[in-house]
């Protein structure tokens, strides 16, 4: 009977009472039964989570007046900041003009893409921003394309290169990458969660929240392990990109350009015919996707998430 979080002396009396409420006694059984969490059905759960997400993104509803006040106070400094930001922006636009289109396109390349070499080269020369943040974005793109292990490894290496106390995060990601090696196909829910966690880590790194980065990485490792423990064939409904043969649930990889990013070496396939049964496949998936209740972009997934 020690699942209650004890608080030294405060607890004594309660436990005393519960001593004769051992399992088997009527009171003991009743207490155990009350402690068993109720089950929430899945559609209720996903509705609640979607509503909560909507509310968070809208921000606090009360306290409007004080927020407005804060904003007004900030604008005095804000104008100065905007002026600086404009200059920085102008400078980077000029730089982009010099480096030319190739660099811009290459900058969004992921490992394995033809332009990726150009991307890293330009970073080495110091022209494009590069750095951990961009590595993490690349890792996201890899995961979206179902190259989970590579993505996690890239993220782990990028974070590991920083040292500064990020070692646990790097280790967690590396471990997750190793575990995910055998997996060639993952659920859309997992990919959404994993990419969002990487984004969370990017933000936490910007804020120098080292512990939080490490914890998020650990969470990502746990999520990955749970995903791996789930039975195969989660993506039964997925369509296969005819261009590259990559399984793709949403085909988000390939729109809107005529070239599938997953297989850009295939060149400019003809726009519409690029996917196997684009129409049927597309609608199938959006239907199977927990009925997307006002979910918006990321909240389409259900609460299941394999927790």
């Amino acid at each position, binding site marked *: 009977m020690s*699942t*209650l*979080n004890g*608080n030294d002396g*405060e*607890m004594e*009396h*309660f436990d005393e*009472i*519960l001593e004769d*409420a051992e399992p088997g006694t*009527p*009171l003991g*059984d*009743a207490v*155990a*039964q*009350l*402690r*068993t*969490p*109720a*089950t*929430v059905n899945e559609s*209720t*759960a996903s*509705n*609640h*989570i979607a*509503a*909560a*997400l*909507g*509310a*968070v993104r809208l*921000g*606090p*509803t*009360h306290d409007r007046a004080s927020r407005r006040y804060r904003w007004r106070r900030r604008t005095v400094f804000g104008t100065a900041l905007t002026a600086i930001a404009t200059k920085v922006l102008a400078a980077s636009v000029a730089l982009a003009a010099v480096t030319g289109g190739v660099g811009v396109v290459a900058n969004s390349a992921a490992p394995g893409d033809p332009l990726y070499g150009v991307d890293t080269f330009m970073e080495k020369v110091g022209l494009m921003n590069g750095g951990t943040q961009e590595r993490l974005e690349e890792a996201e793109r890899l995961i979206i394309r179902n190259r989970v292990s590579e993505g996690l490894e890239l993220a782990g290496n990028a974070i590991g290169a920083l040292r500064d106390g990020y070692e646990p995060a790097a280790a967690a990601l590396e471990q997750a990458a190793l575990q995910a090696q055998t997996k060639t196909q993952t659920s859309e829910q997992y990919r*959404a*969660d994993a990419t*969002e*966690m990487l*984004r*969370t880590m990017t*933000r*936490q790194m910007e804020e120098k*929240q080292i512990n*939080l980065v490490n*914890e*998020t990485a*650990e*969470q990502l490792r*746990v*999520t990955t392990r749970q995903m791996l423990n789930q039975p195969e064939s989660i993506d039964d409904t997925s369509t296969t990109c005819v261009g590259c043969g990559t399984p793709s649930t949403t085909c988000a990889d390939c729109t809107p350009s005529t070239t599938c990013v997953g297989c850009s070496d295939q060149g400019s396939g003809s726009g519409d015919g690029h996917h196997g049964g684009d129409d049927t496949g597309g609608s199938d998936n959006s239907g199977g996707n927990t009925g997307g209740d006002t979910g918006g972009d990321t*909240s389409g*997934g259900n*609460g299941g*998430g394999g*927790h």
Partner: protein
Amino acid sequence: MIGPGFNSVLDAAKTGADWAWSALYNDLSGQVLGYLRAHGAREPEDRLGDVFLQLARNISSFDGDEGAFRSWVFMIAHHRVIDERRRLFRRHEHPTDDNLDSVAEPAPSAEDEAGSNLSTDEIHEMLQELSSAQRDVLTLRIIAGLTVPEISVILRKRPGAVKALQRRGLDALRRKLSVPL
């Protein structure tokens, strides 16, 4: 309990990360729903949604560890229970606590029995027969797993009073359990 990763989950939840809210919901919803049912809430699932909505609206201003967070969650749930109690009282539908059991949600899905021959619903009905103060303390103690100091903050009672209510509530519950239905 989420455990060591809680700070990261909380941080991500504040920014509206899907995975973090799934984690919080999966961790807490079962207990909160059990708590609401134990209080005979009329639409426990809807009230559960209300609790999470309010969490979401105010999470940006929350600061603390997992224990404090759980305490906060159940404080919100407790307020929803009180709201309902007051609403019913105002409408004169069920002027006393003791009548609440007649409208207690049957909750057909909660038949999972932990070895006892009583159903969860029957135990909830017994809880309705306690005084509301005793029920508040016992549900926060047993279902939510909060400590006496935490409960004394939520209920705005001295720790000594909480302990006394807990003892009397448990005694009453034991007596009811010893009498066959």
